């Protein structure tokens, strides 16, 4: 990574004197360990520090964006997860049928399609062909209710639903089918229990662990990894912010966001593990 925050901010016009003055003002002239310890000391007290690339405190830059990220993630999760998990289960109920094949083909295609491609197709179809809505997200979200929020973000949410659906459908199907091949299900089949009841009553409960894990991973992706969608639809979220932090060499901002992303990830993983333990009594009784 060439350059530092002072150099990036001064751009093509940077010269030695301005750089020295600016570095001193930002504290970049101090030794690295001092800068790091200073940041750490403040951070553990809840002070995220001043952004190096901006005249604003880091926390404010984050505050301006986390709402967007949160709303988009929650809407995507609320819509995408139930639909894809149900589709995955249905596919597992009728493996090898034409319905299963179409769904598998569809989800494999979607996995292969990058987000910007899906997004472009959606914009072309809905915005330019059907003339519905905006090609980018315009304006803020203050004072909007849930339906207005949905209308505000519907294209990014739809794009992300396609992205997570492709994985969730396949993983749910695989997890359920995996359980379906175990001896106790064979027993149930021999006893003559209808297939739909076997899947929902007997197989699904045992596959909750892996499914929740996949859901948690997807949620983490929604919070941290949706840069392409944010850039494409022109709204500011946390993923874009961390990339901009890297572009502007603003390591105070990068560290703060890194911490937030780690915490999100850890918390989601803990929830997934707890869910797995709750659904599977065997995990509660270590041998």
């Amino acid at each position: 990574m060439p350059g530092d925050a002072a150099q990036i901010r001064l751009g093509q016009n940077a010269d030695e004197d301005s750089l020295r003055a600016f570095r001193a003002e930002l504290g970049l002239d101090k030794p690295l360990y001092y800068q790091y310890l200073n940041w750490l000391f403040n951070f553990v007290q809840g002070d995220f520090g001043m952004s190096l690339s901006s005249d604003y405190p880091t926390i404010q830059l984050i505050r301006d964006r986390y709402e967007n990220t949160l709303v988009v993630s929650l809407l995507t999760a609320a819509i995408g997860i139930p639909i894809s998990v149900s589709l995955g289960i249905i596919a597992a109920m009728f493996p090898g049928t034409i319905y299963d094949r179409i769904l598998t083909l569809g989800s494999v295609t979607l996995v292969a399609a990058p987000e910007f491609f899906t997004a472009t197709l959606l914009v072309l179809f809905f915005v330019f062909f059907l003339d519905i809505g905006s090609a980018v997200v315009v304006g803020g979200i203050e004072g909007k209710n849930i339906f207005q929020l949905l209308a505000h973000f519907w294209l990014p949410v739809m794009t992300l639903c396609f992205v997570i659906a492709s994985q969730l459908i396949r993983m749910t199907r695989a997890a359920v089918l995996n359980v379906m091949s175990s001896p106790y299900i064979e027993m149930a089949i021999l006893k003559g229990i209808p297939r739909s009841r076997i899947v929902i009553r007997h197989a699904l409960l045992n596959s909750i662990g892996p499914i929740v894990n996949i859901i948690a991973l997807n949620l983490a992706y929604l919070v941290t990894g949706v840069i392409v969608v944010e850039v494409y639809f022109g709204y500011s979220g946390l993923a874009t912010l961390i990339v901009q932090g890297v572009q502007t060499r603003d390591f105070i901002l990068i560290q703060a966001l890194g911490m937030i992303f780690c915490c999100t990830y850890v918390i989601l993983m803990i929830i997934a593990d707890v869910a797995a333990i709750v659904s599977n009594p065997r995990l509660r009784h270590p041998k």
Partner: protein
Amino acid sequence: MKTYKNSRGVVGNFSYDDLRPHEKEGLITAIKKGATRREVMGWMMAAGATVATAGSVFTGASAAFAATPKRGGKIIAAGDQHGPKDTLDPILNTAAIDYFRGRMFYNKLVRLKDDLSWEPDIASEVIPNADATNWTFKLRKDIEWHNGKTLDADDVIYTLERHLGKDTKSNGKALVSMIKDIHKVNKHEIMLHLDSPNADLPMALGTFHFSVVQNGVDKFDTAIGTGPYKVKEFKPGVRTIGVPFANCFSGAGYLDEIEHYGIGDPNARLAAFLNGDVDMMVNVDPKAIPEVEKAEGKDIWTVESGRYLSIVCHQGVDPSNNRDLIRAMQLCINRKRIVKGDLKGMGSLGNDQPIGSAYFDHSKDLEQRPLDLEKAKYHFNKSGVGNTEVEIIAAEVAPGAVAQCENLQREAKKIGMNLRVKKVTTDGYWGAVWMQGSPFNVTTWNMRPTANIMLTLAYASSSKWNETFWKSDKFDNDLVAVRGVTDAGKRKQMYHDLQEDINMNGGSITPAHLNYTDGAASYVKGLTFCPLNNFGGAESPPYLWRSDA
């Protein structure tokens, strides 16, 4: 549909534009009240005007009436890159998005016009002494800040002092480094003493970084300016919203709200513009121009500028200081193809020196260097470089920056030159590649308000930005001497010689000047055409209005 360019239509030998303001006002009032063409012409001819003059004045006045700005409505203007680095501090402005935002909220001492002349803004009068070493600025007394205070000399002095001194982080300091001291004459008058003559000082003070800020303000989480809009919301990298400032001395902004933010992805920006989600966009990709021109109600807003693309030949290292090699490369770059093909006509031919036709001091007599492979081959053979690989480091720092190298590579192959284009990322380019010792690399420069500022920044041997590391005492001396020349003929000749010197002996392969090519919806009126940046030199915010408001 249309393409707006910076051409000024003058009807007849005397036109509406030549009237005095109160005459214009009287005429427009008459037309508003329903005066017919015959009546107006009758009045004017009674006052001694000819038929042609009276006719042209009426035409101009009706056009002006049709173009009388209406208040109301909202405009969303989409820039390109934005991020945490967005700032309201004028001295730290680095990008188009900062300049446009700055013009919403601030004013400068003078205001730059479309033809790059200036007129007073915060200063009511600007008076130089005979050799342009002392400049007096008389300030208007009726200027109110957004926070209700009244502007006086201390504010202007504070603003200027932020650009001076060794430790300043100002991006515009090179333009005012000749200011020796600032003298406060009285509450509404200041005098600047310069080290050396500078007839271009007011032009420099009309550029982006010299927006006047309030005395003592050193935190810029909001903008306390004197401009036509005040801050309603400013979130770096998210959006800026301005609302009219009713007490602005030059008149409140026409729009109820003006919003400015960036859409980094060019395709998304174009889609948003074509779909009507935003009303204006910067940097229409040359490839997309036909699409915009085809679209109903969308116009290309292009301004011919002196901004340019160039390949730097480092004069201090081998092989880029080989005169014959440079000449061979200059002769085999296909300039027309870059302008017509890569830039889709939104540019003009470059001539291996930075002063394009948009500059006042551009020399028309300097012969355009052609594409001449035979001559190029002669120079290439003479250079003795032979089959040795020549490497150009390229990053897409401006539209066509990489394409110019590939163009050169294609043509150079025909004369047997072994040229390689090494593509690197634009991220960090200015710190890691530019002026870091590589023999050949790409560069781009925005237009500066005057030829002298441009030449001083990029070619004077003492400049920190002398990117070609070119050293010529004669050039340096003439560049300083011309600043004090008041004779027009002599000045013209001197600027011609300076441009010819770079063209013949400098280290630049400059194939093209780039227009600023933006898009605006047809109902957006009040466009400016100042050639210094996007959105009409970022001079447009005070004038923008909606015809459908």
